[in-house]
């Protein structure tokens, strides 16, 4: 049985339908890459699953439980965590306080500050620094660590490489591999195809609010993904929608 099952999700920004009739399953231990152009609805989909965005219709089942009506902090308690786009650290709190807020409010488990400092050693010297003063790479490491402090079973990562230097991105992905070899199921939102295809087990591509391609990451060709990304080719008739 899948860990997360989103069924016929619809989500809007005012009159704009950002997510249209999306079905999405994530299995335990899976790493799902969610790709798509700007405005395809990836961020809204993640925020809807995490409970930060209200859905218009549909259902979200997590671990066999209907969580559609639950608020974000209640979903965190069940094991869903989101690393939001733009990192969204508590800028006036120190790195350590950022982590502690999450640790105090989230689930208990193996991830502690010490365990995360082993994964992101660069944060060791920065623990007492206000999060607003960190470099972009350090901020992203803190944001991921903060989400990990809640000991999630499903971690949603939204554009973690956005605005970072290539070297910082390399570092980050190297740490991620260490973090998730035995960790939670992952949904990775990225615009950089090469980056995610290296780590993902499955890939979904979104276009204008819909999932237009879903493949095993090893079987998907770049051509297929690029076509779906830009909507160059229509999908099989079963996936056509009015």
């Amino acid at each position: 049985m899948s860990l997360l099952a989103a069924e016929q999700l619809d989500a809007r920004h005012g009159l704009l339908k950002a997510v249209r009739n999306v079905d999405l399953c994530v299995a335990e231990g899976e790493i799902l890459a969610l790709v798509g152009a700007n405005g395809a609805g990836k961020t809204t989909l993640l925020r809807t699953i995490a409970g930060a965005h209200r859905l218009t219709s549909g259902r979200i089942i997590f671990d066999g439980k209907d969580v559609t009506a639950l608020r974000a902090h209640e979903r965190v308690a069940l094991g869903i965590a989101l690393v939001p786009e733009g990192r969204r650290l508590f800028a006036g709190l120190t790195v350590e306080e950022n982590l502690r807020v999450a640790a105090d409010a989230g689930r208990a488990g193996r991830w502690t500050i010490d365990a995360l400092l082993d994964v992101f050693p660069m944060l060791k010297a920065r623990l007492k620094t206000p999060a607003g003063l960190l470099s972009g790479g350090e901020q992203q490491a803190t944001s991921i660590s903060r989400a990990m402090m809640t000991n999630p079973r499903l971690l949603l990562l939204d554009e973690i490489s956005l605005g970072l230097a290539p070297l910082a991105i390399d570092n980050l992905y190297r740490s991620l591999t260490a973090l998730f070899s035995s960790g939670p199921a992952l949904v990775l939102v990225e615009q950089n195809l090469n980056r995610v295809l290296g780590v993902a087990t499955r890939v979904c591509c979104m276009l204008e609010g819909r999932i237009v391609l879903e493949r095993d990451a090893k079987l998907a060709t770049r051509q297929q993904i690029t076509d779906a990304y830009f909507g160059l080719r229509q999908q099989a008739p079963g996936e056509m929608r009015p």
Partner: protein
Amino acid sequence: MIWLDQIIQGTLLGGYYALIACGLSLMFGVMRIINLAHGDFAILGVFAVWLLVAQTGVSPFLALVAVIPLMALFGWALQHWVFERSLRAGPLVPLLATFGLAIVIENLLFEGFGADTRSLAPEIGDLAFDSWTLTDRIYVGHLAVLVFAVAVILLVGLQLFLKWTVLGRAIRATAEDPETAELVGVNSRAVYAMAAAIAVATTAIAGTFLAMRATFDPYSGPAQLIFAFEAVVIGGVGSLWGTLIGGIVLGIAQSLGAQIGPRGFLLTGHIVFLVVLGARLFLSSVDVRAAMRRGVDGVVGRSRSS
């Protein structure tokens, strides 16, 4: 010597202003609500204290201890049923909601207790007028020193609470970004309700001390709101240390003003408030202009970090 005396008395008076301002500062800092009913909460609290004292004959201090949890409960309920709903409707609606609350509280108190001016001074015996002699010209009242000490203890205590406790960290995180706080597991509504409970509970303390050193009636709230508001703005919005300093600056300004002329008391306080407000606006506009000369990046970075 007379000026030194005024500075000492002004500092002690500033303790009271800090006391009344701390709840206002907390509420604005955490929920971004400018609570126009703040002064009326203090008066509501002191009427509860007065009622207890009048009915049972206990000391006002004991009555205050009983009223504090009641006021905390009142604040919790208000956040839950009034402020939370109004916050969803945009930044102006909470302002209107608190304005309405102020009118309701004032008139309910008037309905229930009439227009009589009351004081708790007769209930606290010698404390109302006893003083220590510093020099042959300078006396400091026991009550004034007590109020100042309570203000310092309360503000320092709140600051330590926010810095070091689990709930305090959750309050600071929620104050910065309620949505992200939810995403790391913090129940932002519960945190807001707790912050409102604390803020409203402190008004009972301030109101009671006001009633001990002066008088109160159902319409005394708005005047207290103005002093609290001035102390918060002078000290810097959302900072509890700043609120303490702001209260003291306001108190000293008023005392020195009173020494200059009989009408100087309120006038000097307001002038200091306006000067500080103007300076802040001027400095921030200079900042923005300088940032624009440096490029748009400066402004973006600034708005994000603030």
